[in-house]
């Protein structure tokens, strides 16, 4: 899935030599994929206030300042690094927009609040719903979405994240493994297990209805 990028060594070399110029080139090559990630991770509540392109642009600015952090991290695939930068940017944006809320969240976290289970799941469902098109289609899919949401809600955080990475961000297994900091074989196992689990829950949900 990273055919568009050369090997890390080559990238490192180019970045060392040409710095931002090289970054721009590689960044551009994967821009589409980064957009997909932004699209998926950008809090649905931000609606039209922040556009994907804004995030991408700001991520670029951030990444350009932090080229060395990539160079320092041996063994970190370029795309996975960029993805991390995107996520950090998103964090900042979310904090900026939900500043007040964030403080509350922080307060609550301090003493622990456990009700908002399944953050990824919320995001998944909101993502699907937000991008859905006509109301009639929505009605049609509402049931499926409800089941998916419920199913994802019943899965554990990591499984949910694996599905998010593989299916929504469309990362490869290697990238997923790097992102999660686990071995590729383990990541693959997780993913397959998560898919299986999804299927089981879906099946039993069908039986009930």
């Amino acid at each position, binding site marked *: 899935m990273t055919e568009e990028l050369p090997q890390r060594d080559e990238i490192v070399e180019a970045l060392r030599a040409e710095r931002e110029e090289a970054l721009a080139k590689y960044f551009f090559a994967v821009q589409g994929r980064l957009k997909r990630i932004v699209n998926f991770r950008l809090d649905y509540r931000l609606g039209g206030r922040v556009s994907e392109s804004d995030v991408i642009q700001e991520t670029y600015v951030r990444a350009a300042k932090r080229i060395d952090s990539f160079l320092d991290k041996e063994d970190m695939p370029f795309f996975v690094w960029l993805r991390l930068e995107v996520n950090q940017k998103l964090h900042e944006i979310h*904090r900026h927009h939900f500043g007040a809320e964030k403080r509350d969240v922080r307060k609550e976290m*301090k003493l622990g609040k*456990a009700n908002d289970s399944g953050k990824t799941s919320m995001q998944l469902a909101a993502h699907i719903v937000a991008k859905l098109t006509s109301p009639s289609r929505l009605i049609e899919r509402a049931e499926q979405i409800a089941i998916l949401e419920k199913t994802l809600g019943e899965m554990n*955080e*990591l499984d949910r994240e694996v599905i998010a990475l593989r299916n929504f961000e469309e990362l490869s297994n*290697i990238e997923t493994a790097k992102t*999660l900091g686990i071995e590729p074989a383990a990541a693959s196992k997780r993913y397959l297990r998560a898919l299986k689990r999804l299927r089981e829950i879906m099946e039993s949900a069908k039986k009930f209805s």
Partner: protein
Amino acid sequence: MANDRPKKKKKLSADDPEALEKIVDHFTSRLRAGKHPSIAEYQEKFPSLKDEIEDLLASVAMIEKLKPSSTSPEMDRRSLEEVSGLKRIGNYEVVGEIGRGGMGIVFEAIHESLGRRVAIKVMPTPLVNRSKYIERFQREAKAAAKLHHTNIVSVFGVGEGDGFHYYVMDFVDGQTLGEVIQGMSNSSGVNSASTQRVEGTRLEMPVKNDSSFSIDEFSLESTVRDSASMEGARSKNQGDLMSRDKLDSRHFRWAARLGANLADALSYAHSSRILHRDIKPSNLILDRKGVVWITDFGLAKDSSNEVNLTKTGDVIGTPQYLAPESLEGKYDRRSEVYCLGLTLYELATLQPAYAGGTTAEIIRAIASTSPVSPRKVNSKVPIDLSTIIEKSISREPEARYATANQLRSDLLAFVDGRPISARPPSAIENIIKWSRRNPLPAALSAVSALLLILVTVSASIGYLYTVDALGKEAQRSEELVEEQEETEKQRKAAVAAAEKMEVQYKRAEANIEITLEAFDEMFMQIVSRGSSSTDLDIEGFEELMGIETSVTREDAAFLEKLLAFYDRFATENEDNEALRLESAKAFRRAANIYQLVGQYDLSVEAYKKAIFLYELIWEQSDDSKEILISLVQSKSELARGLRRANANNWPEAVRQNDEAIQLLEDAPLAKLDSDLKLELAKTYNSLGSSKVLSSVLETSGADLRSRFGLYGFGHRGAVGRGGPGGPGGIGGRPPRRAPGESKGGEPRGGRRPPSGLRKSVGRIVNQYSRESLKLLDELVEMEPSNSEFRSARVNAYCSLAATYMPVNPEQARKMRALAIKELEWLNEQDSGNPSYRFRLAMACMLSDFSNPTQDELNLLNKSLELSKELTEKFPQVPDYHSLYGSVRNREAGVLIAKGALADALASLQLVDQSFNQVNELQPRDRFGKSVMYGALASQLRMLAEAADKQGEKNVAREARSLIPRLRQNYQEHERERR
């Protein structure tokens, strides 16, 4: 990355350990490329993996199909573009474009030979399942064509062409209700921002890549419309309505009549078993004669499941007109009553019932809230009309009019001024409705509910009392005005929270979640008010500093009421599985409160119950991060409670910290997730604190009193001067002392615990703090502006500074400087938050001042300044007095060493005053009080001895005169503790 290199094509075998991964990958990429791979095809190739393949690929297919595709919009737009260029459709000549929708384009056209003017809706035909789709389309069109009603636009033909299909309708010359409402709201001054969305809805514009609407498309569209002989419509038929500034009774009767006509049409269609499926203002047309028409009946609603006409790219703007049950996939006649009700709502108020926000936001609103009553939007809406509308848009289908005809009857009754059948729901009905929706609160017993009101009321009173007291302070000093306002704001917020809760309870809208949240809100209000204290975040740090944190008497009284609620709630619902999480939270809150008010034994007990429940939940939760964090935090808090409750508990505290760390390290995402990482860093710091105490216990078998003296660092140094058992000094035991060391400043080391012990304890803490710092450095590196991370890092710096002090003073100073720098930064970010200044004052005291450098003396002065200012600004917060007293106490130590005994005495008198203040403000004995008295007493003793030697008898007498009272206080507290 190496694995990402394209591999040589090799035949995949079922034995390949990665076979399944590869199959899934292959299948997924084909799906994403827009192909339609079949699962069976893979199963045939790998019969031995048949079942797995089925499971895995079915899941993938489901997600990928639900997921909005990123590739198709291009394609769809292209086909829509192709359609838009049509010049002829069947026997019709296209005159112009009337509008665009998600599904297609509506043209105005003229029949070649008959000259008949029609509207034709043209849609691109999907490439997939084409014949099945066309068949269905024709079937629906035929059904729709059978409808003949004065308010339904007739369909009289369908057809298909090259890549598209269409149906032919009567051409109605007019405006959609969406446009009409928009026009009215513009001229009536109703804010147009919200109605802008209506416009968006109407158009169903094809989405652009960035999914934003463009103004150009709007104006283009309306120009087309205007040129299509719309001229005059505005000024003639609706002119009298639209130019109206204010809505009067005629407007409402007109709206009701319109609604009645529409209801009649719907009722007719329903009797023919046809549903419209998309009633909304933009599908209703008001013609030049003022007749209203329903268009697009039953057609092309894309209800076919598998066929994706236009997979994405058709945007409807907002799903504002969805009935709540639609979200569950249910739709019937009553759903259409609802949609018509929403249209009426908009006609009456000139604004949509659900507006604003993204699609997802609106959907959430629809799923969870009812719109405000039309009368609340516009008080001129007649009560009967409002009632009719509200009944139509009830969230529960059963509560609506059962048929469109019943709605029609009531609307006509309203128009004629006859009594309507609908009644506003009574309070009791509301309660019944509510309890049906929220079965859980039944578990909240009547007793608890009663308690709830009680607490609410007492909360307000408690706050009023506090504010009243503060108010008097404020009169004395104008400087306090600002703080006063802050407090007032907080009080208002608390009262508002209380009122909110009360109202919610009265309306029977309070479910358990809300109740607990409201309580939490109040709890947090107290906890975050002005003081650092309850900032449970400074985990371990304040122990190292020997400063106790606490709440005011008033807050304590209030907290105890809250406690009663939490305790009761938790105990009553402990065994209720459905409420397990809530019970765990309640136990934890109760424990937090016990700890805040100094009842450590009880807090330990409550924490254990909370942890027991959290562990149960955790086991079943399948790695939920939130639960894990709650569990870990509870354990850290318990460790803290254990450290305070009884020395015998110290090893247990270490165990709790250890377990917490284990849990965090085992968590799958611990190293990646910043929340978990932060928690881990904090727990390491906490573990450091627990370890100090427990190793003290192991080495010396120390009792409760002696532990204080064993800190060889921090401002404990001052206490330490009394030997291991500074407070013990007052207890009558003569302080142990190395010979000859009491003469002035040098050397104080001998009065501290054996340096071997100190060093080893220090090393342990140091090691954990370094671990903590490492994690926090990583976090800060990722997010330099995150004040939470940096605040936690301060604690690590401080612990390190304290532990380096006896072994590596240079390193200690470095850490102290870092802590101070960090705190100054934090204070700059959030200068309204006194807790940073509080901590800054503490950090400045991170020195034993045994041989202070000028730099350290400056820091001591800074600390004095800061703490003094805090006590002046927040006279009600005991912590600040306690801090101020401690700083003065250290100052006295320095002065004694310098031989400035009179000054030292003055300082110690201030210390005494401050501690008395604390005593007055604090509700009951606290861990820290013994420390306070002990520290002061030993300092006084030292002063007296020094004064004896210098022959300053007055000073010596004064100093000694204070000691008996302190001893008495101390003994009283110790007695109370047992």
